[in-house]
C-alpha cells in the first residue's frame, strides 16, 4: 500500500565523509536510545537510533557497559589462575571460553589432553550450545511479544542446567574444562537422566515449532525481514548460524574439526533466505542436531581412561614464547582465543574473538538502517548478539 510505504526522499543526505547529515533541531528526526535499560535489548548494551517517523535512519551500537578488562586481568594472573575467570566472559555459554583457553594453553605448552577428556569436552560444549539456543528462541519470540515460548524454553533450559549441575556442581559457571583435561568424570546414571532431558527438550521443541514457527503472525513479522546479503559475510566477518542461514555452510566443527567432531556424523544446518525467520529456524534445527550429537557422544565415548594429562607444577608453570589462535563453533558463531606467551608464568596477551564482536557492531549498524522501530529488537535478537564478548 503506497500510503504506508515510507517516503524516502526525506531521508538525510550523505555528507562528504560518508556520515549522514542529520539536523535534529529540524524536528524531522528523533534520537532514541534503545538500551541499556530496555527489555528489547540483548543484555546490557544500547543502540542509539535516529528515527524519521517510524523508520530508523541511523543506528549506532554502544557497548562497554560490561567491560571488566579481562584481557588485562589475565596478564597479571598465572595460567591456572586465568582458568576460573575466563568463563565469566560469556554468560549463556561459558564453556567455550574454558575450552578455547585450555586448548590454546595446551597447544603452546605442548600438552596433549587425554582422549576421554576430549569426549567430555565435546559433550559439555554441545550441552552449552543447547542452553544458548533455548535462551535464543525464548528471546526471539519474546522480542515479538510471544512470551509463552520463553517460558517453555527456559524451563527446558533449567532441565539442562540440572544436568550441568550434577556433572560440574554449578548451574552457570562450570569451570570444568581446565588446561590439560577436565575436572571430573560423568556422575553415575548420567546417561539415563540425560536421555530423559533430551526427550523433554525434543517435545518442547515440537511445541515451539507449532506455536512459533507455524504461527502466521510470527511469519508475517519475520519472513523477509532483516536479510543479510551473502556478500556481506566476508566483509563483516559473519560466522555461525547467521552465515549458515544465508546459505554459506560455515561451521568450524566441519571446516576445521576440533575435539572429537571428526568421529561424529553430522551435516551443518543451512538455510537460504537469510531473514529473521530463517535464522531462527536454522538455530532450531541446529539445536536438534546438538541433541543428536549428544546422543552420539554418549554412545561412542570411552568410559575409562585418564581425565587429565600430566601437568607441570601449577605454581611454577612457565610456557615458552609463542602465539596461537584456537577456535571453536559456539552457538553464535566462531569463538576464538588468540594467546601470546613470552616464556613467563603469565600470558603476554590474550585476545578473545567473540562472534558478537562483528555481528553486533558493524553488521547491526549496517542492517538497522531503514527498518521499523518495532523491528529493532527482533533484528538484534536474531543476530544472537551477546555484549560481554564484545567488550570483555
Amino acid at each position: 500500500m503506497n500510503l504506508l510505504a515510507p517516503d524516502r526522499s526525506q531521508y538525510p543526505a550523505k555528507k562528504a565523509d560518508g556520515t549522514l547529515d542529520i539536523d535534529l533541531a529540524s524536528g524531522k528526526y528523533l534520537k532514541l536510545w534503545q538500551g541499556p535499560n530496555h527489555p528489547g535489548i540483548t543484555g546490557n548494551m544500547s543502540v542509539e537510533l535516529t528515527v524519521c517517523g517510524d523508520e530508523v535512519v541511523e543506528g549506532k551500537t554502544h557497548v562497554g557497559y560490561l567491560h571488566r578488562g579481562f584481557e588485562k586481568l589475565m596478564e597479571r594472573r598465572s595460567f591456572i589462575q586465568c582458568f576460573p575467570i575466563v568463563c565469566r566472559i560469556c554468560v549463556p555459554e561459558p564453556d567455550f571460553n574454558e575450552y578455547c583457553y585450555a586448548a590454546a594453553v595446551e597447544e603452546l605448552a605442548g600438552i596433549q589432553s587425554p582422549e576421554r577428556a576430549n569426549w567430555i569436552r565435546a559433550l559439555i560444549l554441545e550441552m552449552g550450545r543447547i542452553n544458548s539456543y533455548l535462551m535464543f528462541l525464548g528471546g526471539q519470540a519474546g522480542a515479538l511479544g510471544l512470551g509463552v515460548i520463553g517460558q517453555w524454553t527456559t524451563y527446558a533450559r533449567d532441565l539442562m542446567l540440572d544436568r550441568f549441575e550434577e556433572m560440574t556442581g554449578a548451574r552457570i559457571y562450570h569451570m570444568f574444562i581446565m588446561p590439560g583435561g577436565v575436572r571430573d568424570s560423568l556422575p553415575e546414571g548420567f546417561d539415563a537422566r540425560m536421555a530423559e532431558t533430551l526427550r523433554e527438550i525434543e517435545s518442547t521443541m515440537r511445541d515451539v515449532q507449532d506455536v512459533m514457527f507455524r504461527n502466521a503472525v510470527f511469519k508475517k513479522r519475520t519472513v523477509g525481514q532483516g536479510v543479510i546479503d551473502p556478500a556481506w559475510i566476508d566483509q563483516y566477518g559473519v560466522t555461525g548460524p547467521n552465515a549458515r542461514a544465508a546459505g554459506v555452510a560455515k561451521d568450524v566443527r566441519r571446516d576445521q574439526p576440533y575435539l572429537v567432531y571428526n568421529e561424529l556424523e553430522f551435516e551443518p544446518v543451512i538455510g537460504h533466505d537469510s531473514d529473521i525467520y530463517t535464522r531462527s529456524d536454522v538455530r532450531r534445527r541446529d539445536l536438534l542436531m546438538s541433541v543428536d550429537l549428544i546422543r552420539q557422544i554418549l554412545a561412542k565415548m570411552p568410559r575409562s581412561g585418564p581425565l587429565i594429562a600430566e601437568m607441570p607444577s601449577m605454581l611454577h608453570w612457565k610456557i615458552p614464547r609463542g602465539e596461537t589462535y584456537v577456535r571453536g563453533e559456539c552457538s553464535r558463531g566462531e569463538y576464538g582465543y588468540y594467546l601470546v606467551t613470552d616464556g613467563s608464568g603469565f600470558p603476554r596477551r590474550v585476545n578473545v574473538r567473540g562472534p558478537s564482536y562483528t555481528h553486533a557492531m558493524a553488521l547491526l549498524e549496517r542492517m538497522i538502517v531503514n527498518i521499523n522501530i518495532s523491528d529493532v529488537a527482533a533484528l538484534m535478537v536474531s543476530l544472537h548478539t551477546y555484549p560481554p564478548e564484545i567488550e570483555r
Partner: protein
Amino acid sequence: MEQELKPELQKRMVKGPDGVEFEVEPLRDYYCEALPTVQHGAYFKIVEDFFNWARAQSLWILGFGTGCGAIEMRPLMTPRFDAYRYGIQWRPTPRQANLLVISGYLSVKTLKRAIRAYEQMQSPKYVVGLGSCTINGGMYWDSYNTIKRLDDYMPVDLYIVGCMPRPEALLAGFEDLKKLIRAGKAEGANQYAEKFDWYKSNQKRVIHDWDMPDYNW
C-alpha cells in the same frame, strides 16, 4: 575536575520546525534540579505499616540487567521458580519500579546509568546487590573498570552473595527484603537524601565525565 560538555548538552540556539529560534540549555531545561528530600511516612503508624505491607507484597523490579547475574533472572520469571507467586514482577521503566537489582559487577559506564535509573525511581525504593562482585569486587577486585563496593554509590538494602547466586538464593533474598520492608527498616531513599553529598562525592570520584545534573529525575 571540569570537563568540556558534549555538544548535545551545551547551551545553544535551536531553530524549531516552525522556524522560531529559541535557546536550549539542556542541563537546566530537560532535568529537574530539585535535590531529594527526606520523605516521611504516613502520619499514623498503622497506615504506614499497612503501606509497608503492600510494598513488601508488591515488589516491582526494574528490568535492568547490569551484569551477568541477569541470566538468573530469567529462570525466576519462568516455571521452575516463578517469582510472580510472591508478588515480584518486572517493570520496564524505572518510574514504575521500586526495586533495583544490581545484578553483578558494575562497570563505571553502567554505574552512571544505574545511578540515573535509581534516581528516577520513586520513593520508597530499594536496592539489592547481587553477587560477590557488588560486595567487595569479587573476581574483579583488581579491575580498572569495575567498582568494588556498591554501598559507596547507592544505599543498598540487601546483598545476596554468590558467583553467581542461584535462583533459590535470590528468592530467599527477596523474602528477607520483604521482612525488612515490613519492619520499616528499608529506608534507603531517605538515607540517600540525608547523605546525598557523601554519595555524590563518591560517585563523582569514579565517574570522570560527569555530564548530568547532580540529581536528575
